[in-house]
């Protein structure tokens, strides 16, 4: 049917197509070290000397203004939330809400690693993520691995809830208005899992998954409290969604027996991930002679 030359060209095209497809696949990211992976570990027994990590997350400089969301694509959203705004930067009196603070790694006083444990006293047993007014409540949620997340739809419209993790399986389910609640579990620790609604693309939420219960989300006053922390040295991280991939701020703390340690974090105009009006991608870096660098 085809001549020899035509077959050669068709083969070349097919090979190039497969090559380009193959080159784009398989970009996996590393697991977070906050107990990344669902490996079973030992259970921690409380000794009664656990301490507390408290702090405030502030925002320095002029806070980015929330942007108005255009909900006109779905009248049900417009009628329920006529003035829906972005929740990326919720700053009040210089304090930053919706920041996820957690122990990323550390060593207990007895020398064991926090990642070695999978069982802790007072592990949370359930969390709720509600779709209400065409946005998620809460905007940032913390859970432990395999904790059931109850998903409800309080809106008079259909949503689809789409977990887009890197280390857990992708999960997407439609949930019509009035439908029964759904439950979803994340089996592998991951900070943080973006959740979105493909029906209403402005809807975003983030779920932090850890093997331990030592996490908190800042409230409107920017404060957080992490209780029941065994004495030891830890790296505490404050994660905020600002920017395309979020911004992390680490801090080393030492928790003494029955003690309380303060860890205050600050995000600001100079922090990584701060949006600009036009951000060019660092596609290519040209080496420049020193004389051209000022």
């Amino acid at each position, binding site marked *: 049917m085809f001549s020899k030359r035509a077959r050669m*060209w068709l083969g070349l095209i097919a090979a190039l*197509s497969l090559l380009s497809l193959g*080159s784009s696949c398989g970009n996996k990211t590393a697991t977070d070290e906050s107990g990344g992976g669902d490996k079973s570990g030992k259970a921690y027994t409380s000794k009664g000397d656990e301490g507390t990590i408290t702090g405030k997350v502030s925002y320095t400089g002029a806070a980015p203004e929330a942007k108005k969301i255009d909900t006109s694509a779905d009248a049900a959203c417009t009628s329920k939330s006529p003035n829906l705004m972005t929740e990326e930067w919720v700053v009040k009196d210089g304090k930053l809400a919706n920041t996820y603070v957690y122990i990323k790694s550390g060593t207990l006083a007895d020398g064991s690693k926090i990642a070695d444990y999978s069982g802790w006293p007072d592990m949370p047993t359930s969390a709720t993520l509600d779709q209400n007014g065409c946005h998620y409540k809460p905007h940032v949620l913390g859970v432990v691995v395999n904790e059931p997340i109850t998903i409800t739809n309080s809106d008079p419209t259909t949503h689809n809830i789409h977990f887009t993790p890197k280390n857990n399986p992708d999960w997407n389910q439609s949930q019509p208005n009035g439908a029964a609640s759904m439950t979803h579990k994340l089996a592998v620790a991951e900070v943080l899992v973006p959740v979105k609604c493909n029906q209403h693309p402005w809807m975003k939420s983030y779920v932090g998954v850890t093997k331990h219960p030592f996490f908190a989300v800042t409230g409107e006053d920017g404060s957080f409290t992490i209780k029941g922390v065994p004495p030891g040295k830890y790296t505490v991280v404050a994660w905020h969604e600002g920017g395309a991939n979020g911004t992390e701020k680490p801090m080393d703390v030492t928790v003494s027996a029955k003690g309380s340690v303060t860890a205050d974090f600050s995000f600001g105009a100079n922090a990584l991930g701060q949006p600009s009006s036009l951000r060019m991608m660092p596609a290519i870096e040209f080496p420049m002679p020193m004389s051209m660098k000022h």
Partner: protein
Amino acid sequence: MSKGVHRFALLVACATFLLIIAGANVTSHDAGLATSDWPRSNGTFFPKMVGNLFWEHGHRMVATAVGILTIALAVYVQVRERRLWVKRLGWIALGGVIAQGLLGGLTVKLNLPLAVSAAHATLAQLFFLITVCLAVFTSRNWVTPESSVNENGAGVSLRTLCVAALAVILTQLVLGATLRHSATWDQDLPTSLLLAHVGGAIAVTLILGSTVATVLLRYRTERYLARPALIAAMLLLVQLCLGLAAYIARTASPYDPQPLTPMVSVTVAHVACGALVFATSIILTLRVFRVLRVDRQEYVLAPAQAVRAP
């Protein structure tokens, strides 16, 4: 040859172009998973078209229409066409549209894996190629060309240039599809793929530009060849501008609260114009192969020299 078949093939090609635009809208709006089921949407074939479901279900409706039109065209070609290879192409088109529909369903059911989504976007262009070919093969100009032209001028053959241009354009379309599906509007585009796509744009510009220049230098008076060449050159220019605009809009989009109209419009226009560059290049290539007469050179071996032993 039937005028009716040609007109119907043209209709299917135009409908396929609209389908590519509808598909590009789905990607730019990040609407591919607006419903988790397929082929129904939210449990019904006629859902409430709100939010991004408008784009996803709208794409499915246009695809259904193109599928029905392709079935009709395949049957029409069997009835009215005498050439066996054109009849076969009709069946290939039908197979293509069925495979495309199944790939579309598969990518939704698997939550848009990159390989399947990119394959879906690539097959869309290949199916468009088939429909354009059918429209060309059933045209009067193809069946009874006005005259044939002798390949003149030294250098690379125009046929080779045309096929090379088609190959790089198709590769560039595959790269573009993979780039678009590798990151949603709220994520940064992967740098390696972006660079590959930019490199592809340079390759397309050089090779298609050379093809057009060759046509205009050697066959300027042959409107049958010069017209698609000129149109391809103009579309390429527009496409390069749209590519730059799409890059700027897409780079800023992760900081937008939702996919905004300027970004969606310019990226969809870039996809649509890419399909048009491809279609015009297909027409040019087919016409070149139809009317360009290549004189076979005969290579005569020189008489063997007698080698005298020393």
